[in-house]
């Protein structure tokens, strides 16, 4: 315990991050080591190329990378890196929430919001048909389907979820369509517990 606390001092804003994200000290240290590994030139921050190198095969790679960067920024420092990863911590069972505590990063709502923002790149609060269609589905389905089929699938998806008939999926509709899915199970990485 003592050794990890001393090495925690090497982590910038260590204590504050611990509180904010809810990670344990050991996990935070491992993440810091990982960050330093990814940061090949030891610049203290990451650029998108560093992250993309890891995700080259992932069809959603560039979107995931994009989620780390705040709009307009080109670099990611360690606290931002950790804050994004905090979304993927498994939720604890017996969390008592006082009224004044801010919603923790790994709550179901925040996880869903993260997933929603993967689709909604222009951050207008809605997943429009083109966003869903051309970008996400095409990335995932590759060349398996024709253009028509892709449009049909996207159309169907929107019509299933679109309750207010605006031809787009807003965050509430997104959440409602996934209400029966165990989000905690599907969006948690055990390593980060």
């Amino acid at each position, binding site marked *: 315990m003592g050794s990890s606390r001393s090495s925690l001092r090497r982590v910038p804003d260590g204590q504050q991050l611990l509180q904010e994200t809810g990670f344990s000290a050991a996990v935070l240290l491992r993440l810091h080591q990982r960050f330093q590994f990814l940061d090949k030139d030891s610049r203290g921050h990451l650029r998108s190329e560093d992250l993309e190198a890891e995700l080259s095969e992932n069809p959603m790679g560039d979107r995931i990378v994009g989620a780390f960067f705040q709009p307009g920024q080109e670099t990611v420092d360690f606290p931002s890196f950790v804050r994004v990863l905090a979304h993927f911590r498994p939720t604890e069972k017996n969390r008592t929430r006082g009224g004044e505590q801010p919603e923790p990063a790994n709550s179901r709502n925040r996880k869903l919001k993260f997933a929603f923002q993967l689709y909604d790149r222009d951050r207008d609060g809605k997943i429009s048909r083109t966003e869903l269609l051309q970008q996400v589905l095409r990335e995932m389905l590759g060349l398996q389907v024709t253009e028509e089929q892709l449009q049909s699938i996207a159309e169907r998806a929107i019509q299933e979820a679109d309750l207010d008939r605006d031809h787009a999926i807003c965050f509430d509709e997104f959440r409602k369509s*996934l209400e029966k899915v165990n989000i*905690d199970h599907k969006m948690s990485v055990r*390593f980060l517990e």
Partner: protein
Amino acid sequence: TENTRGTHIICFSTLKGKLPVFTMDYSRIQIPFEFTLWVLLASFSKIGFHIYQKITIWIPESCLLIGIGLIVGGIMYSVKEEPPAVLSSDVFFLYMLPPIVLENGYFMPTRPFFENVGTVLWYAVVGTLWNSIGIGLSLFAICQFEVFDLQDINLQENLLFASIISTVDPVAALKVFDDVGVNEQIYIVIFGEGLFSDAVTVVLYNMFAFLADMPVIDSVDVFLGLARFFVVGIGGVLFGLLFGFMAAFTSRFTSRVREIEPLFVFMFSYLAYLVAELFAISSIMALITCAITMKYYVEENVSQRSCTTIRHVVKMLATISETLIFFFLGVVTITTVHEWNWAFILFTLLFAFLWRGFGILVLTQIINPFRTIQFNLKDQFGLAYGGLRGAICFALVFTLGNTINRRNLFVTASIAIIIFTVFIQGISIRPIVEYIKIRRTNKDLNTINVEIHTRTMEHLLCGIEDLCGQWGHYYWKDKFKKFNDRFLRRILLRDRKAESSIVSMYKKLELQNAIELLDTTMGDISAAPSLVSLQDEKKEASRPKKTFKATDIRKMHDILSKNMYRIRQRTTAFTSKYGLPDDSQTREILIRRHASIQRSLRAESFPCKFSHWLIICLPLVIPEVDRLRSSGVSPRSSSRSLIPMSKLNTIEERRSPVEASVFTGSNIRGRRAPVPAARRRSPNRVDEDEDEIVSEGQGEERHLPPRGWAPENRDLGTNEAGNSLLRPSSLRSQRSWRI
């Protein structure tokens, strides 16, 4: 007369040395005949249970079958007949067990299984070991008490007996869980435990049987036993994979011999079982692995009919086997020789319960930290209580050799446990599960949204795991998927296109919709079901863009609902793209249906004219659609020339922008069962509306002569792009055509 075959030839001829007119030779057919009679008897009782539906909800079928078996056994006992030796070792293990295991393996829900494979194996293997050793040792301790008169049972025999009764056969529990819909995790754990504990028990049994014969046991033997365990398990899996791949590979070449396609599935899986038995490795594991491996590839290669046949036959064989087993359990209970010892039997029951419950608790505590969805106490109770004993236990105890001097006691004790668990636990598990409210499963996850988002999340998590540098669950899943796509699919599948689950889900849902719509309209044409649900009517009402009279809307709905072309588009789309039965056949069927429906309608009424018109137009539509699909034209741009339908000009203009949305809306909402709404509409109301249309249609109406069935009416086809009901509109650019 001299007979060379049987001994029961009865000659009714009165003339000696002449040709017998009527003979009977029972011994020749005895075995197949008796087999058939037993199967029929068991099946009749099964029919009997289901006549009164409520019984099977509260009393599991296995109980009922055992009950009937007991009755039949009583009858046989009283006439001093011996039942056939069905539950003796070879017949059971070579003929009756494989179908059941095949069914379990074939219909295993693979995704939850592989997500929980660690847990399942943990409970199955370690749990069975725990139970066996625990019960064995406790019983041995009890046997030491002189008062029970059990001192001649030594440790090996106790362990042997304990290993026999610790195998679970949760058939009845699974049915209850399935009906009630408990959460997937418990279901798959009990399912897997049932499967694999059989394998473990057989290994343990053989090991302990071997050891029971030996006078002295060294520690070396224990290690050998452990090594054997691994050999048996892993060997079984390897054999299963081998035969599974052989079957999959074979099915790649069977496109010209479709009639025997199902054969390969059965032969290869049985071969896997037998070859594993040959080498005395776990045949159950081999069969399960073979079935799981085979299923995925074979179902993609074989025709739809073969696929249905395979599934059906697998289920049928398994049901027969299971029925017979429980039935004979009842029969043999009465007719076998028993030895009753209160102490032994009661303590066996007690320890079986205790050790299972305790075992589940301890094992769950250890495995829970490794699981994302952890088992709470209710889940654990469900797991413990669902551990019924069954057929394997019974068969194994019958194979105990006569070197075991208290064999009859063991037999009696096993039967007692089986009957107790099946009856008491089997009957009570349903009310208990419902009462304590175990977490239920979310069965309604069949939406394309869930599928898309789940895939996205999987990719996301895979990426996050990559970023964290960790090889987690999703990493392996991804790796396997890539390996599968690159190598296995290429070799084993005839048609190598990889298909994402999103596309399959989409196809499945579309197909469901098409069938639903086809069913409703086809069945109910005289009642003109409105396929547009009330939801959509409200939707139209809320649109501020156009205002329509309510009557118009109703008319639109009627006409649209009768527009078979929409459904035909769908089904032709499927015939051309997705490989359902070829087009001419379905068209023919539709035409015939129309003709027969038409005959049942009155001659003068509008619906008749309407259906005439539809029938006329239908065949014109189909080639249109086909042409369009084959030319790859985008649906939106083609709609103009697509349907040469209504000449009802007066209604068109108002209608066209809306019907597209009504149309597409109904297509989607079709899934949410507009059928009930449809069937509620009375024929009378429809007739009125149509008459209104007739009056509004003015001159147009005369364009629809009440011709007979005249498929080659080309005039209607070529013109009036503008008169199409489905005139393209601005809305079309937003909503795609539901083809």
